[in-house]
């Protein structure tokens, strides 16, 4: 197994043949390629499994004796500059590659079924493996230029996959938004890379760290410039990981197919920002303000994501905001310097969130047949409810994912989140309080999603009970276009959920979906219920469920030979030295239990509140009256209602941040474009045309003057003679 590290450059290139072949096939022999269809999916999965085995092997090596392998080839050499390509294997790389491949494989298996009816099945698989290639390239890259290259490539894959259903205008807007927002981050990243190159003259991580440390030690660098460069580098991570100022693309990115949301926008690509910061932590750690900035951005994102997730109707958007919030936790952990906790949370969150997304995809898949193929409907939690009976396996998977994310003990996220939370006490009490309370919020919104989706009765049919006869409801048009429905607002608490949705008309669904609708309309009856998805979809969910259950174990210390060694610590041994604080919290088991109890109780409080508010109301109509009468009493309640309304309003409008951006930035850029266009047309082009027109008039007048009329010439002659005479007269006298 000694050779494994020598050949590990192959890791990113293993999945590459598939997109190339599919792309060529689709362009040159479309029919033949399309006929093969599923034939393409299997090699995809196979190749990714090979990579997984490879990276497992690598990480076993890392556990046994962690060492860093690096190898570079020259890419382009010139007299003045040389770029190099290579790979860099350390514990971080091995963790990330295992993560990418495992989630990737299950998502691929899942999407075989999920996308099976789509016309773009092959395109989807090509994009997916292109993404896997570039993501693996990103984690194995050995210098900043390579990071930048793959950074952009994953962004492009994300762009393509968000805009996968390109007939939907929403998807078209979302993918452009995602790309441009990410490009702002890339802008920072590139400038940061250039800045550090200017300071140190190197791109290679290890040289860079070494030279930079020397420079800092000798006080040879301009402090402000370094801080600027570091924050620019961090901006790349902010955009990719959907941190506070640049998070706007992530919720919109949910327009893409759900497997994509699971793989790219929950587990892997959004973690690339965390990866970058973790990779460059030796650099950031010597610049103190940057660490504070990172943790500040992290904590803002934690809180913002959690509050924005509170009132989302779209199940995937809710999960997206939750992803954002959890990424904020990781960023916070990195900013605090607890590298280990951040990576641990990265792993656990990736599996849990992938599980959640796959489960939600399964729900969407089964809801689509009933409510129609527009994402406004199939993903709308307003129409869901009571799915527990109809999709039991999915329900279990979703519940496990939810509990894990809430931080309920035996599940994965508990361990990592607890670690972050207890570390945050050591860092700053204010941050700790925010982080703890957000843990409660997390539990609240996750359970809100769970309860709305799975408890109670199916709201689609509940329409009928609620008095409003929406007769048109069952005749959903092919295009998913439909007259507006106002959902019954008889119930006091229900408006909280619906708010002002339905205000905007449903956008027209994709043409492709429309076609599929025809095929599925066959069994659509007045009272159809959602069906459980196929085994192909359930299998990866179950595997991920197992991961969610047990992945926390890698950080549970098992006492061996008197030392508490868990796998994760073993993996991260060299990096652990970087922490400026000791990670001996686990030593004190009392402390651990205290923290754990506290966090679990907060999570339970959140869950309880969610139960109180979103308890399936019509299953207990009697209680509802009670609740209603209770609600209406007293001015305090009104105040509380107002508060709640305020929060929901804030959350429903996405914190007004999107609106602010669209007003300030989009309008600004549009205005600038108009202005320059006007300037270009009227001023610069105007001068040119003006010169043309003037010369035309001059020519015309000359033509008129030189019209070969003798009398006119004589007149001119006489006039000039006269003028001459007058002048000479004045000069003489």
């Amino acid at each position, binding site marked *: 197994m000694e050779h494994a590290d020598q050949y590990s450059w192959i890791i990113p290139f293993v999945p590459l043949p598939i997109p190339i072949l599919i792309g060529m096939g689709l362009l040159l022999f479309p029919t033949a390629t399309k006929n093969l269809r599923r034939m393409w999916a299997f090699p995809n999965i196979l190749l990714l499994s090979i990579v997984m085995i490879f990276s497992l092997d690598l990480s076993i090596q890392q556990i046994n004796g962690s060492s860093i392998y690096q190898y570079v080839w020259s890419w382009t050499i*010139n007299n003045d*500059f040389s770029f190099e390509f290579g790979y860099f294997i350390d514990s971080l790389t091995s963790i990330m590659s295992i993560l990418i491949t495992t989630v990737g494989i299950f998502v691929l298996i899942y999407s075989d079924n999920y996308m099976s009816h789509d016309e773009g099945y092959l395109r989807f698989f090509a994009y997916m493996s292109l993404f896997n290639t570039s993501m693996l390239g990103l984690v194995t890259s050995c210098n900043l230029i390579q990071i930048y290259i793959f950074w952009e*490539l994953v962004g492009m894959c994300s*762009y393509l996959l968000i805009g996968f259903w390109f007939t939907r205008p929403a998807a078209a807007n979302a993918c452009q938004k995602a790309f441009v927002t990410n490009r702002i981050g890339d802008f920072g990243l590139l400038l940061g890379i*250039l800045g550090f*190159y200017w300071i140190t003259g190197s791109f290679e991580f290890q040289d860079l760290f070494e030279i930079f440390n020397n420079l800092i030690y000798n006080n040879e660098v301009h402090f402000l410039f370094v801080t600027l460069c570091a924050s620019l580098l961090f901006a790349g991570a902010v955009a990719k990981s959907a941190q506070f100022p640049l998070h706007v693309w992530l919720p919109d990115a949910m327009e893409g197919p759900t497997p994509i949301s699971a793989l790219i926008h929950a587990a892997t690509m959004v973690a690339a920002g965390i990866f970058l910061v973790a990779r460059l932590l030796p650099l950031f750690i010597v610049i103190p303000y940057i660490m504070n900035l990172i943790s500040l951005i992290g904590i803002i994102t934690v809180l913002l994501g959690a509050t924005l997730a509170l009132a989302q109707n779209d199940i995937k958007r809710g999960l997206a905001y939750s992803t954002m919030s959890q990424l904020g936790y990781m960023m916070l952990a990195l900013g605090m310097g607890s590298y280990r906790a951040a990576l641990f949370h990265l792993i656990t969150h990736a599996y849990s969130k992938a599980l959640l997304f796959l489960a939600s995809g399964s729900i969407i898949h089964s809801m689509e047949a009933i409510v129609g193929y527009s994402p406004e409907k199939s993903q709308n939690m307003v129409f869901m409810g009571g799915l527990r009976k109809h999709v039991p396996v999915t329900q279990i998977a979703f519940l496990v994912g939810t509990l894990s994310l809430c931080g309920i003990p035996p599940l994965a996220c508990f361990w990592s989140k607890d670690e972050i939370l207890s570390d945050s006490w050591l860092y700053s009490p204010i941050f700790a309080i925010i982080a703890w309370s957000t843990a409660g919020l997390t539990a609240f919104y996750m359970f809100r999603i769970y309860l709305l989706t799975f408890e109670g009765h199916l709201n689609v049919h509940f329409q009928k009970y609620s008095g409003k006869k929406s007769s048109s409801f069952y005749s959903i048009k092919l295009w998913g276009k439909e007259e507006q429905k106002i959902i019954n607002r008889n119930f006091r608490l229900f408006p909280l959920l619906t708010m002002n949705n339905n205000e905007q008309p449903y956008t027209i669904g994709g043409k492709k979906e429309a076609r599929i609708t025809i095929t599925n309309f066959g069994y659509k009856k007045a009272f159809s219920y959602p069906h459980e998805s196929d085994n192909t979809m359930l299998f990866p969910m179950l595997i991920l469920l197992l991961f969610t259950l047990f992945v926390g174990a890698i950080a549970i210390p098992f006492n061996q030979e008197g030392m508490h060694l868990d796998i994760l610590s073993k993996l991260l041994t060299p990096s652990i030295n970087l922490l400026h604080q000791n990670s001996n919290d686990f030593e004190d088991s009392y402390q651990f239990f205290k923290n754990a109890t506290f966090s679990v109780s907060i999570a339970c409080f959140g869950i309880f509140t969610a139960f109180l508010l979103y308890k399936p109301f019509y299953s207990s109509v009697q209680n509802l009256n009670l609740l209603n009468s209770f609600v209406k009493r007293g001015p305090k309640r009104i105040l509380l209602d107002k508060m709640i309304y305020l929060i929901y309003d804030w959350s429903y409008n996405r914190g007004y941040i999107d609106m602010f951006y669209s007003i300030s930035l989009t309008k600004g850029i549009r205005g600038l474009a108009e202005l320059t266009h*006007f300037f270009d047309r009227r001023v*610069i082009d105007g001068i040119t045309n003006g010169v043309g027109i003037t010369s035309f008039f001059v020519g015309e007048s000359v033509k008129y003057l030189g019209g070969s009329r003798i009398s006119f010439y004589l007149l001119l002659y006489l006039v000039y003679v006269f003028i001459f005479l007058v002048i000479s007269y004045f000069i003489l006298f």
Partner: protein
Amino acid sequence: MNYFPWLTIIVFLPISAGSLLFFLPHKGNKLIKWYTICICILELLLTTYAFCYHFRLDDPLIQLAEDYKWINFFDFYWRLGIDGLSIGPILLTGFITTLATLAAWPVTRDSRLFHFLMLAMYSGQIGSFSSRDLLLFFIMWEFELIPVYLLLSMWGGKKRLYSATKFILYTAGGSVFLLIGVLGLGLYGSNEPTLNFETLANQSYPVALEIIFYIGFLIAFAVKSPIIPLHTWLPDTHGEAHYSTCMLLAGILLKMGAYGLVRINMELLPHAHSIFSPWLIIVGTMQIIYAASTSLGQRNLKKRIAYSSVSHMGFIIIGIGSITDTGLNGAILQIISHGFIGAALFFLAGTSYDRMRLVYLDEMGGMAVSIPKIFTMFSILSMASLALPGMSGFVAELIVFFGIITSQKYFLMPKILITFVMAIGMILTPIYSLSMSRQMFYGYKLFNAPSSYFFDSGPRELFVSISIFLPVIGIGIYPDFVLSLSGEKVETILYNYFYR
């Protein structure tokens, strides 16, 4: 060395073979098309052969040189020769012109003349890239304008006469300055006119005179390149011309300006260039931002692409102005890379225009379903245009960035500022190019009109776009293809700046 006159043959072959077009029997357009494409391919093969076997990359001097006395009393020579700087553009010319003739197959009106003009332009362009004599360079430069003018004024959109006139006036206006410069350089000093590049490169002038010469040449090349504010002919011309003409314009003609800037302004007038280079960089940076934001405001598809190529020219100017090895290499790489990308984008825009018959972007939409292949190629190439890594544009822009960063001529603050503004252009580029492809292809279309069925791109169009795409990605993955051509020469040019 063998003295076979390769370059003369290469320069003369297209136009002489093209003039035979008029003697071909009137048997329809097919014969003409095939004849032209065969000539183009033959020429390309000949060029490649000559360069493969008679060009040594490690030699920065002129190779394949030819020297015949043409006009005796004036000391005017027919001097041809290539070096690392010109081999790239010549190969690009051959490649793009061949593909443009292939792209011009739908042209039926006066196709005999059209193809002849294409071939004449081929000759003119190769001639101006390979001439080693200042006056010959000027003659070739002017010679190549005539076919472009005719191509613009006879084939294209409604306002083609306006734009052709604008083009010819602009370029002729620029040529006046070029002629002044050429004569000034040639007649300065000695009794006999010296027009040879080699002797001129070693000559030194009083600073004021050099600056005047420099300004003259700069104006001429700024019109061609184009550099703001002399760019307004370009969007009009590109908006109106037939797309194969656009391919030639965007792919090659714009590059002649940049080539001349390196060849004459940098090589012959080094002192003035080092005085002017900060201004060049400032103008280039402004151009990137200005053209990118103007591009956003365009409704016309082709004009939008045209402004995008103006914006990309900014990188070339910055690379030339940076006076570093890296920067100049980046500029040359950008010349080649944008030659491919710009040509491909115009081609795809033109082919999709052939189907949609819509000019304005906001009228389009939902084309992706009916023409998926064009959609694919267009998205790939707009990605290439926004400098996605793995494509040639990225490498070129990156190297230009490094050129600025490593430049020893400038201080830290201006460098930071320039880099910052250039990078803002990096944000603006995806906004216009992606919104272009979004407006064209994304979304849906209610197919009201019964005749709104479009043919997807056929094998010919697919061949053209893929064969442009391959070098784009090839250079992107392994940029030494181009850098190895120009590296030695660039070093020699820059040698003058540091040791003289």
